C-alpha cells in the first residue's frame, strides 16, 4: 500500500514538473524579450512609439510606421471579416440544418488550417494583380470623390499596400470569427428564440434582436481573438503589404507591419542596437496580443457560462 501511494506521488510530481515547465517557458519568453530589447528601450524610451524614422544606417529607430501599419491592416481586415463572419455564423447556428452546418463548419476549420505562407503565395500572384487592375480602380472610382472617404481611397494604386494586406488577413481570420461565434450562438437558450417568435417576431427579428444581443459578449470575444491573430500574422502580410515604413492615409499606399519588419530585417540586422530595436518591436507585438487574448478569453467564457444579459 505504501509503495503504491509512493508511485502516485512520483507521477504527480513528474507531471507537475512538466506543467511548471510551461510556466517557466512563458516567463522566459517575456524575460528574453525584455532583456534583449534593453539597448533600444534605454536609448529611445517612450519616444520609440512616436518616432517615424526607421534608419539602420544612422541607428535611429522608431516604431510608429509599423504600429500604424499593424493597426490599419488589422482594422481593414475586421471591417471585412466581422460582417461576413457574423452572417455566416448566424446562418450556421440559426438556419442551416445540423448536418449541413457541421459540414460547412468542418470546411471552414480546414480554411483555418491553411498555412499562412500559402495565403501569401495566393496574395502575391492572385490578389495583388486583381487589386491593381480590378478592385483598386473601382474603389477609387466609387469612393474617390465621397467627402471624408476620399482620403482613404487615393491613387496611386500599385496593388500592394494596406488594403491588399487587409483583404488577405480578412480571409485568414474569418474562420476564427465564424467558429467561435457559432459556438457562442448555439449556447443561447432555445426559450429565448421561442419567446420572440411567440410574440410575433419574424425569424430574422428573433435572431437579430434577441439571439445576437444575448451572445454579444461572446461574439465580441471572437472578434478580439481574430484581431489578435491579425496583429501577429506575419508571412501573408509581409508578402503583400509592400514593405515601406511610411505612414500614409491612403489604403492603397504601401506600408509595413511590426511582424513583417521583424521577418524581413532580423537576419540582416547589423549592430546590437538594430537587433535590439527589432526585439523591442517583438515585445510590443507580444503585449498587444497578450492583452487582446486575455480579454477575449474572459468574454467568451462569460457568455458560455450562461452569461449575456438580455438587452
Amino acid at each position: 500500500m505504501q509503495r503504491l501511494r509512493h508511485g502516485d506521488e512520483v507521477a504527480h510530481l513528474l507531471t507537475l514538473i512538466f506543467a511548471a515547465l510551461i510556466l517557466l517557458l512563458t516567463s522566459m519568453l517575456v524575460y528574453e524579450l525584455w532583456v534583449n530589447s534593453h539597448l533600444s528601450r534605454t536609448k529611445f524610451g517612450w519616444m520609440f512609439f512616436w518616432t517615424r524614422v526607421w534608419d539602420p544606417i544612422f541607428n535611429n529607430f522608431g516604431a510608429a510606421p509599423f504600429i500604424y501599419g499593424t493597426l490599419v491592416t488589422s482594422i481593414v481586415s475586421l471591417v471585412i471579416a466581422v460582417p461576413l463572419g457574423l452572417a455566416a455564423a448566424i446562418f450556421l447556428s440559426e438556419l442551416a440544418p445540423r448536418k449541413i452546418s457541421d459540414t460547412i463548419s468542418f470546411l471552414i476549420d480546414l480554411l483555418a488550417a491553411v498555412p499562412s505562407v500559402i495565403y501569401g503565395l495566393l496574395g502575391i500572384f492572385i490578389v495583388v494583380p486583381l487589386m491593381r487592375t480590378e478592385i483598386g480602380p473601382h474603389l477609387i472610382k466609387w469612393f474617390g470623390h465621397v467627402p471624408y472617404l476620399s482620403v482613404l481611397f487615393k491613387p496611386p494604386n500599385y496593388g500592394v499596400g494596406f488594403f491588399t494586406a487587409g483583404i488577405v488577413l480578412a480571409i485568414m481570420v474569418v474562420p476564427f470569427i465564424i467558429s467561435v461565434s457559432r459556438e457562442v450562438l448555439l449556447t443561447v437558450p432555445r426559450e429565448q428564440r421561442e419567446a420572440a417568435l411567440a410574440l410575433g417576431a419574424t425569424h430574422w427579428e428573433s435572431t437579430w434582436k434577441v439571439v445576437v444581443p444575448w451572445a454579444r459578449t461572446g461574439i465580441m470575444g471572437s472578434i478580439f481573438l481574430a484581431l489578435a491573430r491579425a496583429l501577429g500574422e506575419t508571412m501573408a502580410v509581409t508578402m503583400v503589404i509592400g514593405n515601406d515604413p511610411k505612414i500614409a492615409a491612403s489604403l492603397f499606399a504601401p506600408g509595413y507591419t511590426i511582424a513583417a519588419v521583424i521577418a524581413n530585417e532580423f537576419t540582416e540586422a547589423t549592430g546590437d542596437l538594430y537587433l535590439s530595436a527589432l526585439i523591442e518591436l517583438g515585445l510590443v507585438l507580444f503585449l498587444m496580443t497578450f492583452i487582446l487574448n486575455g480579454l477575449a478569453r474572459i468574454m467568451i467564457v462569460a457568455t458560455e457560462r450562461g452569461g449575456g444579459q438580455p438587452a
Partner: protein
Amino acid sequence: MNRLRLIWRKSLNVVALTLTGVAALAVVSILFLILGYLIYNGGKSLSWDFFTKLPKPVGETGGGMANAIVGSLKLLLLAALMGIPVGLMAGVYLAEFGGKTFSFVIRYTTDLLNGVPSIVIGIFAYSLAVLPVKHFSALAGGVALGIMVIPITVRSTEQFLRAVPGTLREGAMALGASKWKTIATVILPAAKGGIITGVLLALARVAGETAPLLFTAFSNRFWSPGWSQPIASLPVMIYTYAIAPYDDWHRQAWAAGLVLLALVLVANVGTRLALSRGGAARSV
C-alpha cells in the same frame, strides 16, 4: 400603413436570412478557390525532379526541393521530440492531478502561449538557441516549432482525458489499482485515439509555419547533414521563391505550395474523420 410595415418586415426577413447563407457560401467557396488555384498552378509545375533533386543555382532552370522536404521532416521530428512529451505530461497533470489555483494558472499560461504570434516565438527561439552558439541550426528551428506544439497538445490531451467516463476510472480504482496505474493502463489507452489526433493536428499546424524558422533554421540550398547547420524547409522555400523575381522559381513555389497544402489538409481531414467515426468518438 400597418400592412406596408408587415411587408417590409417580411421582406427584410427573407433578404437578411438569404444574405447570411450567401456569406457562409462565400467563405466556403474561398477554400475551394484556394484548392483550385494550387492544384492548377502547382500541378503544372510538379515533377519527379521536384521530389528528388536539389535546387539549381540562380539562373538555371529545373532542380527540385528534395532538401527542403527532408528538412521539413527533420524539423517536425525535432518539434515532436521536444514538444509532445511536455504537452502530454502537462495535459495529464491538468486532467488528473491539478489543484484549483495552479491548474488555472497553467491553463491560462498555455492559452497565452498559444496566442503568442509565431514571429515572436521565433525571436524567443533565436535568443535561446542561436545567440549562444552564434549560428543558425536545425536544432534552433526544432526548438521554435517544439514550443508551438506544446500548448495545442496540452489542451487536446486534457480535453480527451476528461472525456473518459468516470466509471472506467472508478472500476480500475475499485480493483485496487493506484491512481498512476489507473491513468497509465486504463485512462490513457481509452483516450489514445483523441490524444493522437490532437498531436497530429499540432504537428500539421507547425508544419506550415514559416515565420519562426526564418531566423532559427534559416535556409539552405544544399543538404544539411546532422542537426547543427542551417536547414531548408518547405514553407521558407515557398516564401523565398515566391518573392524572388524569377519565373522558374515562381513555378516551383506553386509546386511546393501544393505539396505543403496537400500534407496539411490530408492530416487535418484524416484525423478529423477518424475522430468522428472511430474509437475516439466512444470516449468523447
